[in-house]
């Protein structure tokens, strides 16, 4: 298994270097923004002055930069097919579970290392920005690591199953696209529900205070924003209450995908429809 882990790291090293360079360059940028705020060079950013600009920059650096860490995810199943390594590894003295397990382990190691590095950077940012570290950051970072790991192993499965780069990419795109659409629809309903509640509240307030809507001290948009934040807060609380259930569910699903991937890898190379003309990785 160690050999496969080393192989995954070697193949991904260029991407790791680019991701690390991007991450630290952006972090430096956020720190420079803070220094700029100290000297008052950033004025009405977000319409509220230098302190607000610094705060916004801080939260963006702590949470937004997590997205950059996705570059440390390992998924070389496509390039394994292109290079015919997937055929060579069938001649190695390793079981399919060891092969898939090694890839999962490599992922776990790199994602964990990336998140730990980000945790360290967050402590540094807290010191520079003068904002206290909050315990829930740990939960957010851990949740991020678990979610990214889970979706990565899900997107690897189509490559093991179809042994075709085109089909693997298509299936992975459909899966991730489906999740994106699902989240978009969920957010749409959330926003719509908040807007609906805000609209009903505004009408009720106008009737109660016996004034026109335009004369009310609060706008419908502001109310909708508050309802949305409140609903998201409730959802977050619910998710946090049931976080162990989600963790167990994610672990079980990951285990399921692991066994399915190992089984797919175990199948004879000619057990899938052969790749089309000229596509690499086909067994002649």
């Amino acid at each position: 298994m160690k050999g496969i882990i080393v192989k995954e790291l070697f193949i991904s090293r260029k991407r790791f270097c680019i991701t690390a360079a991007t991450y630290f360059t952006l972090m430096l940028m956020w720190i420079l923004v803070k220094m700029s705020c100290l000297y008052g060079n950033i004025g009405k950013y977000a319409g509220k002055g230098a302190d607000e600009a610094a705060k916004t920059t801080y939260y963006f650096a702590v949470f937004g930069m997590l997205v950059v860490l996705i570059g440390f995810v390992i998924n070389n199943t496509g390039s394994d097919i292109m290079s015919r390594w997937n055929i060579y590894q069938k001649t190695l003295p390793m079981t399919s579970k060891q092969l898939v397990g090694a890839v999962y382990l490599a992922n776990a190691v790199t994602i964990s290392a990336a998140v730990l590095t980000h945790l360290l950077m967050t402590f540094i940012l807290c010191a520079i920005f003068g904002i206290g570290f909050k315990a829930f950051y740990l939960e957010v970072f851990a949740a991020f690591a678990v979610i990214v790991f889970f979706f990565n192993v899900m997107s690897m499965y189509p490559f093991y199953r179809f042994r075709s780069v085109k089909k693997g990419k298509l299936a992975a795109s459909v899966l991730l696209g489906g999740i994106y659409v699902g989240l978009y629809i969920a957010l749409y309903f959330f926003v719509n529900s908040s807007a609906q509640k805000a609209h009903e509240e505004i009408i009720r307030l106008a009737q109660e205070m016996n004034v026109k809507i335009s004369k009310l001290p609060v706008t419908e948009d502001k109310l909708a924003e508050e309802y949305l934040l409140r609903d998201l807060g409730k959802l977050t609380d619910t998710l946090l209450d049931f976080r162990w259930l989600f963790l167990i569910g994610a672990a079980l699903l990951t285990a399921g995908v692991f066994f399915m991937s190992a089984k797919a890898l175990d199948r004879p190379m000619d057990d899938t429809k052969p790749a089309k003309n000229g596509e690499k990785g086909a067994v002649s």
Partner: protein
Amino acid sequence: MAEYTNAIEIKGITKRYDGFTLDDLSFNVPKGSIMGFVGQNGAGKTTTINTILNIIRADEGSVSVFGLDNIKDEKEIKKSIAAIFDELPFHETLNAKNLNSILKRIFDEWSSETFFNYLDRFSLPSKKKFGQFSKGMKMKLQIAAALSHNAKLLIMDEATTGLDPVVRNEILDIFLEYLQNEEHSILMSSHITSDLEKIADSVTFIDKGKLLITGYKDDVLNSHGILKCSRSDYESIDKNDIISARITEFGVEALVSDKSGCMKKYSGAVIDPAALDDIMVYYVNRNKKEWS
């Protein structure tokens, strides 16, 4: 591993695809020898090799390697075999140093010293990416990797195809060196019969998924011959004695499989030695019987 006589034993292997069937193939690769596995393109050589390596599964039949079942004892077998393919199966972004780091953690008996010695011998750079290697360099790299973990069996699928004569010669010498150890065996598939004539101890011919001949190379070469005669003399030859005949306006050249018998039967006929190349060509045309 228990004692065994044959490095590979193939019994009744059948594999069916649309438009092609590997049909009831049986042959052995004796321990300590090189078996040349010959056939034209599409004959079923790669299918057979993939079955031995458990890359694909046969529909019927069995394969044993070192006396062990190739499916049940797969992991045990694969510690001691090395496969060499016609295309390099390593990522192009890796270099030889990286490959050493990877394979030394996979094979218990990997020797980095042996690997780098072969790299020096083949003049392969250790830090150059594989994507920049020529075809000959890629093949030498595969051979260096194959010979660095004390493999008892090399299985090569068209390993010398596309290489120039100088590189092919170098590689064949390496294989002869490898076979100095009596525990080592090689199964080498190729349609370049001149390579096999140089080094093979035994040969197996297949065509369109069917076994044609299997046996010691010298026996095969000694038993076959090219009977040359005029077209009028050809009429008097028993067609059961010939595999196929090439008919030209100048005469007839027919392959016989019982050279000494035909020499006695057709005492006036000229029967020249047949090369593996000739044997392959004439057998491929056996159904036509007469061709030009």
